[in-house]
């Protein structure tokens, strides 16, 4: 097991390097003088020249990449000019808020999606199955940002149950109940599409597994039907459900960009959008590299979880 994790960790290194190369190449597409683009059009010529020197932008492209990479490895992602603070500090602080939101969402969609899929499969063609299938169809078709806005209208404006925005708890301004009240709507809105996708997949994975011989064995042993479904079948189905959760994590993280904007959640997604609109290129660059690298590590964790579940993977 240890050697398997090590192997996967080593395999993640070239992927993360590849990510930095891709981000670097995309950023080199910036038209005109990058320093001007980074500092904005009101920058003084001296500042532009200084930045060009600092970033090594007067050097050849390959050399520029390695300077950038070297700086990042030392924890130097540059300074955000619009916020006037180190990119790394800003990104890490914002990423915490995003992790709370996306993590909650991922937990919600995994649990609800799997339950819905299992119930649907166990009662195939029954009323519950049809109802779930219909709800799932609507769920995967509704854009999360639109859903979020409609939730605000209903729960915050009309019913006045939940606050629209203003989550500060993560930064020490409130307690856990306050955080939960702020989290409820955005996390749910973000989870809906992924819940639908996971439910659909869990249903078909369960149907596939329930036809297997070992399910008949469990029934022949006299195992209760509840255990047949929730222990025997679900455990085997998890082998194909877990990778889907891994993929959905990417979609939840992506959807967080919209949801953070709708609910003014102080996360990394909204930070990136603002940074793009203010042309704060270094902040975008740093944010994208850090979040993407974390996503690679998350997928690695999914693979490890998979191998823990299925002993056939590592042997």
């Amino acid at each position: 097991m240890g050697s398997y994790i090590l192997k996967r960790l080593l395999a993640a290194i070239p992927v993360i390097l590849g990510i930095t190369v891709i981000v670097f190449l995309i950023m080199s597409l910036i038209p005109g003088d990058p320093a001007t683009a980074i500092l904005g059009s009101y920058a003084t010529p001296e500042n532009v020249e200084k930045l060009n020197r600092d970033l090594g932008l007067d050097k050849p492209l390959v050399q520029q990449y390695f300077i950038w990479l070297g700086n990042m490895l030392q924890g130097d992602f540059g300074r955000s000019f619009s916020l006037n603070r180190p990119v790394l500090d800003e990104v890490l602080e914002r990423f915490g808020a995003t992790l709370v939101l996306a993590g909650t969402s991922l937990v919600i969609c995994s649990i609800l999606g799997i339950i819905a899929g299992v119930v649907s499969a166990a009662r195939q063609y029954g009323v519950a199955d049809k109802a779930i299938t219909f709800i799932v169809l609507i769920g995967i078709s509704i854009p999360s940002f639109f859903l979020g806005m409609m939730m605000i209208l209903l729960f915050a404006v009309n019913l006045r149950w939940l606050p629209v925005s203003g989550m500060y708890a993560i930064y020490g301004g409130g307690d856990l109940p306050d955080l939960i009240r702020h989290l409820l709507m955005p996390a749910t809105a973000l989870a809906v599409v992924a819940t639908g996708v996971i439910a659909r997949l869990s249903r078909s994975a369960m149907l596939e597994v329930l036809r297997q011989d070992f399910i008949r064995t469990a029934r022949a042993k006299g195992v209760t039907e509840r255990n047949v479904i929730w222990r025997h079948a679900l455990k085997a189905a998890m082998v194909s459900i877990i990778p889907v959760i891994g993929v959905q994590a990417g979609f939840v993280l992506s959807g967080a960009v919209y949801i953070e904007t709708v609910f003014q959640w102080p996360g990394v997604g909204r930070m990136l959008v603002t940074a793009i609109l203010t042309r704060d290129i270094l902040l975008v660059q740093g944010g994208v590299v850090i979040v993407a690298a974390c996503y690679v590590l998350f997928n690695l964790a999914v693979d490890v979880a998979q191998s823990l579940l299925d002993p056939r993977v590592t042997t």
Partner: protein
Amino acid sequence: MTAGDVAPTPQRRRPAAGAFLKLFLRNRLAAAGAILLTAVVLLSVLAPLLPLQDPYAQDTAQKFLRPFSPGHLLGTDHLGRDILSRLIWGTRLSLVVGLVASFGAAFFGSVIGITAGYFGGRTDNWLMRAIDMLMAFPYILLALAIVAALGPGLVNALIAVAVVNIPFFARNIRGVTVTLAHKEFVDAARLAGMTDLRIMVSEILPNVLPVIVIAMSTTVGWMILETAGLSFLGLGSQPPVADLGSMLGEGRNALITDPHASIVPGLMIFVIVMSVNLLGDGIRDALDPRLRSGALTRPMARTIVDRNAVPQPPADPALLNVQELRTEFRVGSRTLKALSGVTLQVRPGECLGLIGESGSGKSVTALSVMGLVASPPGVIAGGAVRYAGTEVLGAPFSELRKLRGDRISYIFQDPLATLHPLYRVGDQIVEAIQAHHAVSKSKARARALELLEAVRIPNASSRIDNFPHELSGGMRQRVGIAMALVNEPDLIIADEPTTALDVTVQAQILSLLDDLRRERGVAILFITHDFGVVAQLCDRIAVMYAGRIVETGPTAAILADPAHPYTRRLIACVPELGEGQRELHAIPGLPPAVDDLPPGCAFAPRCDKAQPACRTGEIPLDAFGSERAVRCLFPESDQAGGAA
């Protein structure tokens, strides 16, 4: 599930009508999607011809008019512009952008995929590595990075969305190309001196085109949504031009005071994505033949019982009485009669061998006893199964479950497929105990270990923590036997337990079963196609043909002097070692299809002694001597003692 329900619902009774209805419903949904989508596309295509107001004409005095205001059917936005007009023009823009992005992604994805798949080797390796890198990003980060570099704007958002979707196309198309690259027609083109480029364009491309089209149809809705999303964030279309996303984004600023400016474009996006999804699902279902045959249904906890009458209890109550059992498979409009009236008894401590060719119904008989025939499509259409005098087919599910694995247990054929791959074998045995007895985990584990030793698994104390895939086939079958024995059942139903094993292991397993039977006095219903196995283990034999018992009696008597022509032929098929010169007699013809049984004796078409009388009417299973019975009008016998 169906705990305790004996009477099947009408829907299950007529799966043919049900399947048709389901398909119809599904098609109806798909058709609804198609109609919706066509309407949306028509509206946006005809936008220039429709009597719409100027979508850019501002009139701040008229801002935020509610829907159904005079002159503005859907109201006006924050600048007093007509929302209906903006909606239709915005939809047009969103559809165009989504389509162009889709074509762009398809084009570049196909170029990469075909190149990688066609050249293979290093080219393939490098291209696919690069694609993997792109896929390592959460998609929106990549799109945001591209928009950040190129600057906000609809064209740039379009480029970003297209680039993000390239990997999907590249991977799919590479996969198809790889299989094509070594086909004869490509080799032929190469030999004819065509350039690589020409081969890719004129030979490969036409063959991967369907894949490209399917991939496009599944992603176009997604791309419309993604570009709308970027516009919503203010990174796509810039004012005053608006696609659906930026309309929604602008409306959001007045969400609380004037929600209609958000709801209208939001609903439109929802309608488009939903109709694309409906259409896609419908197409996928129609293309997937597994759904049509109903093969993707899951078996329920017990076989559906749908019988008119329960036979009277027999005069001679054995341990297990199977009476006139009729099990069918109802697939669509066809009914396959797997069993047409099987009757057999197993007495305490006795071993009955149930023998027949594949398809004769012996496994179905075994599974029907405890309601384990996969259902749907299996249905028990008649007869009764009595264990110790109690009828079990009609019993509530909780009663049936208590018998399963406790009083009557099973050993199945292929121990790799029949053990759960993700649980340790010890835990699987423990579970069999705890399903019926409230004992502690440690006690159950000690019992499991005891059983593993009893079935002679070497090193049982460490093997108990192995997963099934870590054991050999013979070991796995020993685990299966231990699991069947663990609750000291009265009857074990062994369904070809040695068929998947090699000969030496087979002999070990058989002698193990024989020892266990003698030591523990457990009765065995042994299903096999092998007379050699039967001779070694069984007290009595029942021979099955086409879903019926055709002969039954003590093993020695039948082997020495088979009465039914079929039994005789079957025994003649068994090669015997050391009798090298003996001629093997294959039975001519094939067993009949069980949905089309001939009247009279099912074996008559293959029987060289068949008379006209054999082909009419029901032929009963008549007593033949004191302990035997045979279903034949003209039983063959060397001894004249036949009572027929």
